[in-house]
């Protein structure tokens, strides 16, 4: 209904900002523009530090990083739900810190720890949410039905939440955001706890949403991040450590294949890049022949090896985990 109105408003908003000499932005392209965002909950530790961010329209951007990295903190600030301690934030051409009420109706978000009201059905949950978003009653009914069908929830539309399993509850929440057709959709770990089939139905729904909507995701499932993201932002310790397309990030790690080795007392991978992580070594090689060779060498000295393709997980490990060396050094090289 109001897409046109919204885009006109958006243009006006962006223009105002440009004229006011605010953060400069391309009115067509950039939906999120953040500068120096920071958050401390207790005044001592920074949960998010000095984050700069710009996100283009129609993209799927995934936040990746270990527990406590600051992903949820960043998402909550971007949805205008949490006030940052520092920084500037322009969303959809509006100053989201000064006028959050102008951007809020154009955003949909599913928080990480959201739970559905327990005495209602998935249909009632999605339908009412759409009415709150300004849909007419008939549009809300139609879109609720479409989203529930898309996520395989139509069959349980009349069951109350209390009688549904955890994965179904999570899907009902995801259906809310997907049905919204909002310009900007945030989902904090939407697929956590979902089975292999329903995860794929969420992926399909996200693919449909893409193009019209910009999606910000967080996930701990690496293959999901690789499969869905136009851009990945890797965070650690409240900092944005790195960002780029999946292939740009993958190129930060040498090799194509990875051999994960454990059960050996010292590394025997001279000439290869490797990382030590707790008691295991991750060795990066270029060919599958090399990985077979390493695996069999390790087997000879009683180790176990697992061969796999290089993934974003290795980028995360490379950037924020273990230590990394092209040549083994120090006491590890005592042979």
């Amino acid at each position: 209904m109001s897409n046109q109105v919204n885009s006109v408003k958006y243009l006006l908003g962006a223009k105002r900002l440009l004229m006011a000499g605010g953060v400069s932005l391309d009115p067509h392209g950039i939906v999120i523009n953040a500068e120096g965002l920071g958050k401390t909950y207790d005044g001592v530790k920074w949960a998010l530090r000095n984050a700069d961010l710009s996100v283009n329209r129609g993209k799927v951007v995934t936040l990746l990083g270990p527990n406590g990295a600051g992903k949820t903190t960043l998402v909550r600030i971007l949805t205008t739900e949490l006030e940052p301690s520092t920084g500037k934030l322009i969303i959809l051409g509006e100053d989201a810190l000064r006028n959050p009420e102008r951007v809020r109706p154009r955003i949909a978000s599913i928080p990480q720890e959201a739970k559905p009201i327990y005495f209602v059905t998935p249909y009632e949950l999605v339908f009412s949410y759409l009415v709150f978003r300004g849909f007419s009653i008939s549009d809300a009914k139609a879109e609720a039905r479409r989203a529930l069908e898309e996520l395989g929830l139509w069959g349980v539309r009349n069951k109350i939440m209390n009688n549904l399993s955890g994965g179904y509850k999570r899907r009902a929440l995801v259906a809310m955001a997907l049905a919204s057709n909002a310009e900007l959709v945030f989902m904090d770990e939407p697929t956590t706890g979902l089975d292999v089939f329903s995860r794929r139905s969420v992926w399909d729904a996200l693919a449909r949403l893409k193009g019209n909507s910009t999606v910000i995701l967080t996930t701990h499932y690496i293959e999901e991040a690789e499969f869905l993201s136009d851009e990945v932002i890797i965070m650690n310790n409240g900092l944005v450590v790195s960002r780029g397309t999946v292939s740009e990030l993958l190129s930060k790690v040498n090799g194509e294949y990875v051999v994960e080795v454990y059960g050996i007392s010292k590394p025997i991978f001279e000439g290869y890049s490797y990382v030590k992580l707790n008691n295991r070594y991750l060795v990066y090689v270029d060919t599958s022949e090399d990985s077979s060779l390493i695996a069999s060498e390790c087997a000879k000295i009683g180790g176990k090896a697992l061969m796999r393709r290089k993934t974003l997980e290795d980028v995360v490990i490379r950037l924020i985990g273990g230590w990394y060396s092209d040549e083994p050094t120090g006491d590890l090289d005592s042979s």
Partner: protein
Amino acid sequence: MSLQGIWTQVKSVIVFAWFYGWLAVIREPFWLVSSLLNPLSIVVIMTIFGGVRYMSFGLLGGLAMAVSSSGGFTIIGDAAYLRLELKYQSMLINTRLNPISYTLGLALSELTYALPGLAVFIILIQLIMRIPASLYLIIIPILALEWVAASMLGFTLSTLMNDVRYGWSLSGILGFLLGTLPPVFYPAYLLPTPYIALVSPVSIVSTVLQYIILKANYPQELIKLSVIVLLAETVIFTILALRKSRWRSIY
């Protein structure tokens, strides 16, 4: 705000009440009973010790109390639960709802399941006091103001809680401080000065009801002041909910 915008808000409030009130009523009917019991138990005790004369005061106080708990005091617990436990408020922030329509939606939900209890009070009051229908033209707006004021205050307070358990206990404490301790169930003229009734919206309403229904002996000044204070509280608490409640989080 445009007419269209207002209609969206009204529609949302009604759908909210259907969703969170009516569906709860039909699926969890035992809630109906609990909202009635607090005020009714006081009426029972008053009637046993004071006789039928005090029953009238008790019933009017019970009505005033039931209206404020059907909004404000119960909202504190519910709103804290929806925000902290379910993160529902965080989701609804990104909709067209604002703190006022959200609060009214919640309050109308509470009212939905308090309705049978309120009906019991009104029927008893009607049976015993035989109020002329025209008086309801004054009674209903007064009760409505009380309901809005209590709800806005309740919501604002609930957003300051960071643990759901505090929300539930604060509802109880406020119910006592504002709904039981001041002259709600007993006439304010028993106190050194009846102006003490002005301390709480609930006792204000109770006092006004006693004045217009029971012809209780209050200075006219007090009644005028009561209505003014009630109006002012409604406006102030609404502005507080809009500007000072934590619609977004700080933690």
